[in-house]
C-alpha cells in the first residue's frame, strides 16, 4: 500500500511484476505520447492470438536516414525479462533525452525497438495456469499424430503452476542431488551410478500414446521460426521457415530498413558475455556456418564492451540451435548481430553462517535454490508430494520442483538494474557506429575551365560500414561516392558514380575526377548504415 502510494506521488509507473501485453502496450503508448518528437509507435501485425507486434522508432528528424540499431525483446515467450529490457531501454533512453549526450545520440542514431516478439506465449505467465511456454497461438500438432493440442499439461497438485513429477522406477535415470535433496540430477551411468527416478513435466498422458504433455496448447516459437538452419518439422519450429505472421512482420520491416547496422536481441542465446569465435572451416562453407574473420573480431570487441559496461560475469554457456534471431541477424540479414539473456542466476557462495558447503556437483537448480534463499526469495519451490497418478498405477509418483520462469527471469524488483546496465550498453554500442566523412578536398586547375578534384572518403567510426558477410547481401546498399554535376559541367576523367562494398573502421578510400566546366559541384558519399555526407566544390 505504501509503495503504491509512493509511486502514485512520484507520478511514475511502479509495477510489482512484469507487464502483460496490455500493460506493455500502454507503456509504449505513453512513451509515444510523451515524446512525440522522438518516438513513434506502430503495430506491424496482429498475431494469431490477436496481439499486436509493436515497433517503437526512437530518433529525431528523418529516422530512416540515420544508422540504426534494432532492439528485439520477447524473443522467447518464457523470457519476461527480454520484453522488459526492450521497453525499459526505450523508457530510460527517452527519459534521458533532455541531456545533451542523449540528444546528440538521437540526432545520429535511430533505434527500432521491437518490444515483444512472443506476446501470445508470454501471456501464459499471467494466465490461470503458469507454465513455461514459447509457442504462439497458432494451433499445431507438435507430435505430428494428426491431432492438435490433445496432450497438454495438467496441474496435478492444483497450485496453478506446472512444475515436475518424479516416478520411482528401477530404470530411472535421475538421482537426488548429493547436496540438496530437493533437486534431481542425471545419474552418471559411466561412473556406475544408478538412477532412482524418472522425471517428467507435470501432467498426464491424456491421449494415451506413452508420452507426457507432448502436444500442448501453444504453437510456433518465434526463436525457432526464422530462416537460418530452420528445424523444419521439429516441435515449435513450423512446417517451413518464417511461417508465422510475427516473424514475417519483423523480417519485412527489417529488410526494408537499409539503415540497420546491428541487431541486439534479448533471449537465451549469448554472444555478448563470450563472443563467437572465428572458425575458418565453418566460415568457408558454401552455406556459411561461422562468422567471417573481421566479423568475429567485431563480436570480440563488442563483447568486451558489453562485459565492461554491464559488469556481468559467469554467464552460462548458450548453444545456438537454429531458427533463431541471433543467427538470422548475421547469417541472413547480414548485419552485426548480438544476443544476451540480460540476466542469469549468479553463482552463489556457500553461506558459512548456515553451515553451507560448496557444491560437490554444479547444477543450475541447486544453485538457484541456494541463491534464492540467500536473497530471501520464497515460494518458488514446491516440495515433492505424493499423488495418485492414473498413468502409473501402483507406482510412487510425486509432484513438485522449481517453479517455471524463475531460472531465467529475475524477481521484478531486480529488473530495473538490469535495464539500466543494458541501456548503457546500447548507448555505448551506438558510439562505435560507422560514420562517413569526406576529407582532404583538393582542387587543381589544369586549365581554364578544367579542374581536378580529389577527396578522401573516410569512415570515422569503430565499426565497418557493413559486416563482412553483409557485403554479399542483396538487401544492403553499397557505399556510393558520386559527383553531382549541374549545368554544362562534364566529368571527363574518373567515374561519376562509384559503388564500394564497404569502408572498414578507420578506413579511407581516395577518389579524383577531372571536370570540365565552372560553378558549383557536389560530391556525395555514404550509405544508409553509415550516413551520407555531401560537400560543395567551387570549380
Amino acid at each position, binding site marked *: 500500500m505504501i509503495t503504491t502510494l509512493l509511486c502514485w506521488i512520484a507520478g511514475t509507473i511502479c509495477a510489482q511484476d512484469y507487464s502483460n501485453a496490455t500493460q506493455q502496450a500502454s507503456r509504449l503508448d505513453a512513451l509515444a505520447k510523451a515524446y512525440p518528437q522522438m518516438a513513434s509507435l506502430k503495430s506491424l501485425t496482429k498475431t494469431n492470438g490477436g496481439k499486436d507486434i509493436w515497433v517503437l522508432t526512437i530518433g529525431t528528424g528523418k529516422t530512416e536516414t540515420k544508422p540504426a540499431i534494432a532492439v528485439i525483446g520477447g524473443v522467447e515467450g518464457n523470457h519476461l525479462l527480454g520484453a522488459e529490457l526492450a521497453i525499459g531501454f526505450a523508457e530510460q533512453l527517452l527519459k534521458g533525452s533532455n541531456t545533451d549526450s542523449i540528444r546528440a545520440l538521437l540526432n545520429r542514431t535511430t533505434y527500432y525497438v521491437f518490444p515483444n516478439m512472443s506476446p501470445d506465449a508470454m501471456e501464459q505467465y499471467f494466465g490461470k495456469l503458469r507454465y513455461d511456454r514459447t509457442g504462439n497461438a497458432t494451433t499445431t500438432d507438435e507430435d505430428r499424430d494428426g491431432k492438435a493440442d490433445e496432450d497438454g499439461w495438467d496441474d496435478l497438485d492444483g497450485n496453478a503452476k506446472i512444475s515436475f513429477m518424479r516416478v520411482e522406477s528401477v530404470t530411472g535415470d535421475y538421482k537426488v542431488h548429493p547436496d540438496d535433496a530437493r533437486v534431481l540430477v542425471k545419474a552418471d551411468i559411466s561412473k556406475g551410478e544408478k538412477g532412482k527416478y524418472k522425471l517428467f513435466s507435470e501432467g498426464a498422458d491424456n491421449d494415451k500414446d506413452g508420452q507426457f504433455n507432448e502436444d500442448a496448447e501453444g504453437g510456433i516459437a518465434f526463436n525457432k521460426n526464422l530462416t537460418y538452419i530452420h528445424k*523444419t518439422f521439429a516441435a515449435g519450429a513450423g*512446417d517451413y521457415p518464417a511461417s508465422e505472421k510475427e516473424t514475417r512482420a519483423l523480417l*519485412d520491416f527489417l529488410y526494408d530498413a537499409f539503415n540497420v547496422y546491428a541487431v541486439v536481441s534479448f533471449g537465451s542465446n549469448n554472444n555478448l558475455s563470450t563472443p563467437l569465435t572465428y572458425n575458418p572451416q565453418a566460415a568457408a562453407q558454401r*552455406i556459411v556456418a561461422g562468422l567471417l574473420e573481421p566479423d568475429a573480431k567485431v563480436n570480440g570487441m563488442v563483447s568486451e564492451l558489453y562485459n565492461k559496461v554491464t559488469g556481468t560475469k559467469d554467464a552460462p554457456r548458450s548453444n545456438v540451435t537454429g531458427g533463431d534471431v541471433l543467427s538470422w541477424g548475421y547469417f*541472413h540479414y*547480414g548485419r552485426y548481430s548480438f544476443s544476451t539473456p540480460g540476466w542469469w542466476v549468479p553463482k552463489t557462495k556457500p553461506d558459512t553462517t548456515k553451515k553451507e558447503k560448496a557444491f560437490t556437483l554444479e547444477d543450475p537448480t541447486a544453485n538457484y535454490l541456494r541463491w534464492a534463499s540467500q536473497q530471501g526469495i520464497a515460494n518458488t519451490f514446491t516440495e515433492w508430494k505424493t499423488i495418485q497418478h492414473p498413468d502409473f498405477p501402483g507406482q510412487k509418483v510425486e509432484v513438485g520442483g522449481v517453479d517455471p520462469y524463475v531460472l531465467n527471469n529475475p524477481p521484478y524488483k531486480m529488473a530495473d538494474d538490469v535495464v539500466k546496465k543494458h541501456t548503457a550498453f546500447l548507448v555505448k554500442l551506438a558510439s562505435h557506429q560507422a560514420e562517413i566523412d569526406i576529407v582532404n578536398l583538393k582542387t587543381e586547375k589544369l586549365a581554364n575551365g578544367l579542374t581536378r578534384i580529389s577527396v578522401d572518403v573516410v569512415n570515422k567510426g569503430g565499426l565497418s560500414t557493413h559486416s563482412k558477410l553483409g557485403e554479399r*547481401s542483396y538487401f544492403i546498399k553499397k557505399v556510393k561516392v558520386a559527383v553531382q554535376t549541374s549545368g554544362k559541367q562534364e566529368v571527363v576523367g574518373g567515374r561519376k*558514380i562509384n*559503388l564500394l562494398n564497404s569502408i572498414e573502421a578507420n578506413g579511407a578510400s581516395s577518389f579524383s575526377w577531372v571536370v570540365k566546366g565552372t560553378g558549383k559541384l557536389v560530391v556525395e558519399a555514404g550509405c544508409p548504415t553509415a550516413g551520407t555526407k555531401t560537400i560543395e566544390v567551387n570549380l
Partner: protein
Amino acid sequence: MKQFTLKIIASILVLASGMSVQAQLPDQVFKAAGSPVNPKVTVTWNRYYDHAGISEICKKIAAAYPELAKLQSIGKSFEGRDLWCLTITDFKKGNVDKKPGMYIDGNIHSNEIQGAEFALYTAWYLTESFGDTKFIQELLEDKVFYIVPTINPDARDSYMHKPNTASSPRSGVIPVDNDGDGLVNEDNYDDLNKDGHITMMRRKNPNGRWKLDPKDPRSMVQVGPDEKGEYEILGIEGIDNDGDGRVNEDGYTFEYDPNRDWGWGWQPNYIQNGAYKYPFSLPENRAVMEFVVKHPNIAAAQSFHNSGGMILRGPGGQEDIGTYNQQDIAVYDAIAKKGEELIPGYKYLVVYKDLYSAYGGELDWFYAGRGIYTYSNELWTPFLMFMKEGSRDPSENPAFSFDRYLLFQDAFVPWKEYDHPQYGKIEVGGMKKNYGRAHPGFLLESDAHRNMAFSIYHCFHTPKLEVSEITEKDLGDGLKEVTAVITNTRLMPTHSSQDAKNKIERPDYISLTTTGKILSGMHVENRDLNLSVEQEQNPQTIEVPNIPGLGSVTVKWIVQGGGKYTVSVDSKKGGTVTASK
C-alpha cells in the same frame, strides 16, 4: 444510354460471330484419333495467351463443363492479377476433396511461357475428351487435377507486352535495387529500334573477333586465331541510363527468382542467387503454398519450365541427397522413364547432379516439405527442330536453318544501323524473344499433348486403394477375428518415405463398423507367422503409417458378437474406400 445500347449490340454480334466460328457442323469434321473432334471450347493451340487470354479460356472451360471443371482464384499476384486454378474431376462421383490429387502449374519463370499453355491444354483435353474416352472418365472418377496455368501472371504479361529477350524477365515484378546504389530499376534494357524485342548490339571494328557466318549472314561466328574479324559484339540492346559506367545493370527484368523462394532448404541470396527475403516472401508462391497445404489430398505435382527437354526431379541441393531414399527414387524413376518414352527428346535428370545446385526450388518444397512426388519439365528442346540430337558442329547452326526453312525467317530481327548515344554507330538485330525457348507455333500442340500424357500417367499412379479382403474367423466363446486386407494397386504409396519419416501427413485410418463389440484391434505385420501389433487406444480405427504402392496392409480386430462388417479406409493422399461383408 446510347453507348450502353451500342455495347449490347456489339456484344450480341461478338457472341453470334463467335458461335458461328466456334462449332463446326458435326458432319463436316472427322475425328482424328485421340483428339476431341468438335470441342465446345475452341482454342487455337499454335499461339500464346497473355493473362487476360488465359483467364478467358479458363472461364470458358468452367462454363462449358460445370460438372467437370470449377474455376477459382487461389490468390492475387503482386500487381493484383488472379491466380486461376481449374479443378478438374468428375464432380458427380465421390468426394472431390478426398480424391488423390495432381497439382500442375506453369510459368513460374515469367519468360518460360509455354508451361501455361501446356497446363491449360491438359484442362482442356480432359474436359473435351471426357465424353468419348472411357479412360478419362475412370481417371476423373478417381482423381482430381488442380491446374494453375500461370503462377507468375504479372511478369508473363510483361514478357509479352514489353520489350524483352527470350530470357527476360525470369523474375516477378516486385522492384529490387539490383546494384545496391539506392536507386531502383534505373538502368533497364532499352528497345532501341522499338520493335518489342530486345536483341543484340554489334559494331563494325577492324579489331573485332567476329565475322558474318558465310552460310547464313544473319548469324555471327568467331574468327580463328590467324583470321581478322569485322565486328565486335557489344551485348544486349541498351544504354547506360544512369551514367554509372554499366549497361542494363538494374532493370525490372531480373529482380529475383521465384523458383528460389520455397520453404525447403531455402538459402539467402548471397548463397542462392535469386532468393528473395524468406521462403514464400513472394505473394504468388505464398498463394500456391497455402492452396497445397489446404489440399492434403495432393499426392503428385508437375511444374512446367523451359527449356532443354528435361524431366527433372530433386534434390536441388547436394545437401539434400539423403532426403530422397531408394524407395521414393524407385517411384520417381518408374514414372520418369515412362516420360522419356512418351516425350521424345526429353531426358530424365536430377537437378543437383545433372544441372546445378539450386536451393529453395518449388519441386524441393513439394517433395521434401509436403511429401508430394514432383517433377519439373524443361519444355522445348532443339531436338524437336529436326528430330535429332543437337550437333556440336557450329557450322550446322540448326537454330538459323530451322528459322530459315521452317519459320521462313519470322524469328529474326534483321540487323539495322542505329546511332547509339554511348557506342556511336552500331547495328541492332538478332533472334526475337519468342524464339529459342518458346515452342514455335506448329510444335506447340503436339508437345503439350505429350507432356500432358506424362502428367496423366503420373496422376494415374497416385494411390488407388481397395478393400481386397474381409474375412471372419470364429475364435470360440462368441469371439470373432475379423481380418481386412487393404491393397494399393498403383505405384505411389500413401506416404512417400519423406512423408513417413517426418510424419508430414497423418496415418491412414482403417475403421471397422459392426454391430458387435470391438475388443481389440491390430496392425498385422506378418499374417502367415501371426505377428501383429495391438493398438490399445481406439481399436475401432487402426492407424497405419503407410499403404505401400503395389502392395497391401493387413489389419484385424477381435469382435464380440459380430454380424455385418463394414471396413472404411480414409487416407489423405490415397483417398477413401469402403466395403462390407
